[in-house]
């Protein structure tokens, strides 16, 4: 099948049986790939009410039709499962070189199902696939194991691996790859760990067929040419996502001391140019990327090498915990990578614990003697380790900020910065109503990448609550995740301003099917509704209350920084949701109405 590996690899860990099934052409036609395949298999194969950490849950990793191709940024794969962190939908995008390798091994998805009786890793070398004993790697760090497996099998093999946190089912455990790329959010690493799978090792040497070779080379070259000629290429590539640290700081969007403010008085030493000068040793690109945002650093102070840190980690494990030392942030990043936890959730939940400590809700007795004040670097390092190992206070925090705050109580729920149980990522939204709505309605919880609408807030007036803002969020949510479906990165479009029409002839030349962006956005809208219906299916009381933002953003204005004194009105939160539901074709409780489902070709039995 043109543009595809052609096979689904089903790994039954309970029986040890591995089968290759032909990828159904209609699946490729209707869901395209990536997170489209993920939600298809999740709805179809994981029974309602499945325990996220039990044998019924499945972990599905899928490249897309642009993965591994002459497509600028075709280095993304999607990891889908039921989320241990939220009890809803998890879809984590991972860059690096793993997705291309899956494609060359002839794979469009790997479905991990059941539970192995002992630690194993999945070994795939083209058509050969088997489970191998992972006893010697169990308990070891993700970065360390990747290095061992690379040394054992060679550079041609790509490896996705969990750390100890995934083994111990930390609810925001991640999957690590390429020494610092992650499938980060929702606890996908805990699901892999619950199945007793330490790693997936893959090599593929097959050529990927395309529909029209000449048109493909021409379209691929045109996309690269546009990227290379883009005005912002040099600056973007120099700093990657850290380019926005200063912008966010100035805009009042940089999460600071558990999102109590959006500007950090000591942020200058976290800014991109400072970091580049101080610690970066090389750019580190995902597969096929002409504008690599990945930075790789030598952290002299801690005698270590670390990927990044990128913006999110700087925001959450820097300013959000009151740390301004970029080397400390980079080292915290490495600790999280090796232990196997998501830096976003980690920095968020540690920020919450620090606020609890400073308010006297948690005491030194609770923290195991740690002086958990904002800015305490050693305490942050220690707490990361305690979370990953579920020791002491770390065991509480390992369940995520929502559950931890419900357990501790004493008003701490009000400053638990989460939606649907997922810790909010790196944008403070006291006064940025599009971005706030994007977080409220994001399909995995409070994550930014579906609709990065904060620049639109600045453009049209951040406090405004108007239908245009809602329409913008919806458009972004339908459009941007299509990159996760296609198996490519969106940043060439976002950051270099590449004309998205360049992808159209490329996709057609690869798959042989002509699709416009209008067609693709319809697929995106359909997937958005399917994921919404997954939440509905899994949670009897799912509805409007699940879309409410962290109370902080409508109750407590920052006392410093750009957004000092600014806040979103509670009535505006509800107005945003009313408009959003109406424009989406959902009822006032946020559930898709039958007409909307019919329009999108979603049959009740698909989501029952």
């Amino acid at each position, binding site marked *: 099948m043109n543009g595809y590996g052609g096979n689904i690899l089903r790994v039954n860990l309970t029986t040890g049986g591995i089968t290759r099934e032909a990828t159904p052409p209609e699946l490729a036609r209707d869901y395209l790939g990536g997170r489209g395949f993920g939600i298809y298999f999740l709805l179809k194969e994981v029974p309602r009410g499945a325990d996220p950490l039990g044998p019924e849950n499945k972990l599905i990793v899928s490249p897309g039709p642009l993965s*591994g*191709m*002459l497509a*600028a940024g075709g*280095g993304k794969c999607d990891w889908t499962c039921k989320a241990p962190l939220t009890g809803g939908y998890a879809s984590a995008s991972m860059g690096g*070189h793993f997705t*291309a390798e899956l494609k*060359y091994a002839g794979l469009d998805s790997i479905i991990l199902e059941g539970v192995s009786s002992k630690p194993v890793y999945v070994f795939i070398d083209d058509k050969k696939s088997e489970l191998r004993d992972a006893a010697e790697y169990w308990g070891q760090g993700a*970065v360390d194991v990747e*290095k061992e497996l690379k040394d054992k099998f060679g*550079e*041609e093999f790509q490896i996705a691996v969990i750390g100890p946190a995934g083994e111990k089912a930390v609810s925001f455990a991640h999957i690590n790859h*390429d*020494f610092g790329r992650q499938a980060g959010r929702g606890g996908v690493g805990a699901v892999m760990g619950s199945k007793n799978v330490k790693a997936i090792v893959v090599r593929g*040497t*097959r*050529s*990927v*067929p*395309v529909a029209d*070779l000449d048109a*493909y*080379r021409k379209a*691929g*070259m045109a996309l*690269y*040419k546009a*990227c*290379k000629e883009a005005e912002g*290429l040099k600056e973007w*590539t120099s700093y990657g996502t850290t380019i926005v640290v200063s912008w966010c700081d100035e805009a009042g969007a940089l999460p600071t001391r558990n999102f109590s403010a959006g500007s950090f008085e000591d942020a200058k030493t976290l800014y991109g140019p400072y970091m580049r000068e101080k610690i970066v*040793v*090389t*750019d*580190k*690109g*995902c*597969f*096929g*990327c*002409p*504008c*690599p945002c*990945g930075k*790789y*650093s*030598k952290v002299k102070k801690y005698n270590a*090498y670390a990927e990044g840190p990128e913006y999110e980690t700087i925001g959450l494990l820097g300013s959000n915990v009151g740390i301004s030392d970029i080397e400390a942030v980079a080292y915290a990043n490495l600790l999280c990578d090796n232990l196997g936890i998501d830096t976003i959730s980690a920095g968020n939940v540690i920020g919450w614990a620090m606020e609890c400590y400073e308010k006297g809700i948690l005491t030194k007795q609770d923290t195991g003697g740690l002086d958990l004040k904002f800015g305490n670097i050693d305490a942050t390092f220690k707490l990361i380790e305690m979370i990953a190992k579920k020791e002491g206070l770390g065991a509480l925090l390992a369940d995520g900020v929502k559950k931890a705050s419900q357990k501790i109580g004493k008003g701490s729920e009000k400053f638990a910065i989460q939606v649907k149980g997922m810790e909010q990522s790196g944008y403070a939204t006291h006064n940025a109503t599009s971005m706030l709505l994007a977080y409220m309605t994001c399909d995995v919880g409070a994550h930014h990448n579906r609709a990065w609408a904060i620049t639109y807030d600045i453009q049209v007036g951040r406090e405004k609550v108007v239908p245009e803002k809602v329409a913008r969020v919806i458009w972004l949510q339908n459009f941007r995740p299509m990159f996760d479906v296609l198996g490519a990165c969106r940043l060439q479009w976002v950051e270099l301003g590449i004309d998205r029409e360049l992808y159209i002839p490329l996709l057609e030349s690869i798959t042989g099917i002509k699709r416009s962006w209008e067609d693709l956005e319809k697929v995106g809208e359909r997937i958005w509704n399917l994921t919404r219906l997954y939440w509905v299916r899994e949670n009897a009381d799912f509805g409007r209350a699940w879309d409410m933002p962290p109370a902080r953003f409508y109750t407590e204005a920052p006392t410093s920084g750009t957004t000092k004194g600014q806040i979103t009105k509670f009535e505006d939160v509800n107005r945003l949701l009313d408009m959003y539901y109406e424009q989406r074709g959902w009822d006032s409780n946020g559930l898709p109405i039958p007409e909307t489902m019919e329009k999108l070709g979603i049959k009740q039995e698909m989501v029952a």
Partner: protein
Amino acid sequence: MRLYVDSKKCSGCNACRVACSLSVFGENNPKKASLVIEPHFPAPGEYIVRVCTQCGECAAVCPTEAIKQDAQGAYYVDFAECNLCEACVPVCPEGVMFVRTELANTAWKCTSCGDCVAVCGTSALWLAEVETETA
């Protein structure tokens, strides 16, 4: 003309290797590329890129004279005449002469076509005249 590289600028993305396999074989398969990227991680955190210098050592030892020179002076493999003897592989000083029979029924090498240069976003690769040593 030959290919030059500044490894310090390489980010390891492999776009060059996809473009190369498309140019040499008309296939999307970087395992069939004519240049090599060696990542060195986690330490010291660098990519080393090896490219063909068009030195001609491969052609000099080829018993079937399958490795020929084009009008621009670049050596290329005439696939029809390669007998897979592998004599060319060990003599390549850069390690970029390839015989992998599980992948292709011929030896292959860089033809200095420049497609890799066209897709390299960090400008790590470029084409220029072969520098000749002066006495």
